[in-house]
């Protein structure tokens, strides 16, 4: 099965939006109170959920055509975005261990993609 460029673009947009959604979820989780008024006021959490849903829509559109074994590994690019956002928005240190782990994960996902093709 060939994978159209539009599917590749859609999946990459999905993973980018998903990484932003994760920022919203993290921001909302920091002040999480599980009561209805508190959840109604937790705009960061709501934005995160919205981003998460929106990324799912793009992801589903991307998966309509194309090979899952090609498209699915592309989502891992979102991990790089998320690492950057974590540093930018939450001041999380990007330690050598984290960067090394991320590199390992990306290599592993690439290997799996090779094994699936």
């Amino acid at each position, binding site marked *: 099965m060939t994978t159209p460029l539009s599917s590749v673009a859609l999946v990459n947009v999905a993973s980018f939006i998903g990484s932003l959604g994760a920022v919203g979820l993290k921001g909302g989780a*920091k002040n999480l109170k599980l009561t209805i008024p508190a959840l109604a006021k937790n705009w960061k959490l709501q934005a995160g959920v919205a981003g998460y849903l929106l990324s799912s829509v793009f992801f*589903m559109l991307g998966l309509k055509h194309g090979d*899952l074994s090609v498209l699915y590994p592309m989502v891992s690019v979102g991990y790089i975005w998320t690492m950057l956002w974590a540093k930018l928005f939450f001041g999380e240190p990007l330690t050598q261990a984290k960067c090394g*782990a991320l590199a390992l994960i990306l290599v*592993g*996902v690439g*290997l799996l993609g090779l094994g699936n093709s």
Partner: protein
Amino acid sequence: MSATLDTSVTTPVNATPVNTATSSPPGATVSTAPPHTPAPSTPEQKRKALWMVVAFTLMASVAQVLYKMGANALNKVPSGSVVDVAFGSLHFHISAALVAVATNVPMIVGLSLYGMGAVMMVLALQHGELSVLYPIISLSYVWVAILSVLVFHEHLNVYRIGGIAVIIGGVAVLGRSGSR
């Protein structure tokens, strides 16, 4: 899970592990801590967060497969077609695509799993760093690879074994830095 919900105050991003002797009993945290001085996450809470993400990846990989199945089924619905739906004397003309979505069990189950996964992620993010927890989602690749061998009897080649091993290695490194 209940320990996670007890501390409804904010969690600092760079929380240092606290001595267990100084941590408050469940329920007491809210009343003792001032509203803007978040209680640091305990190592136990951080470990729990890591495992919640692992559970999320299992759900997400099942959702992934269902998603694709649902999307494939939707492709077979001719665009612009209508179906007749009758409730007693009431007759409706409904877009076939709409009915196809509403009755698409794999898609609905897949979406529900994603929803539940999102809730789990939020609860996990209360006590863990985003830069640690988010890349752990890559474990879902490992689950899918294992599932495709076990369920669909796909061939386990060198690339796949290597990929699984390297991803697990990366996640292990993250888990180490996330539980301290």
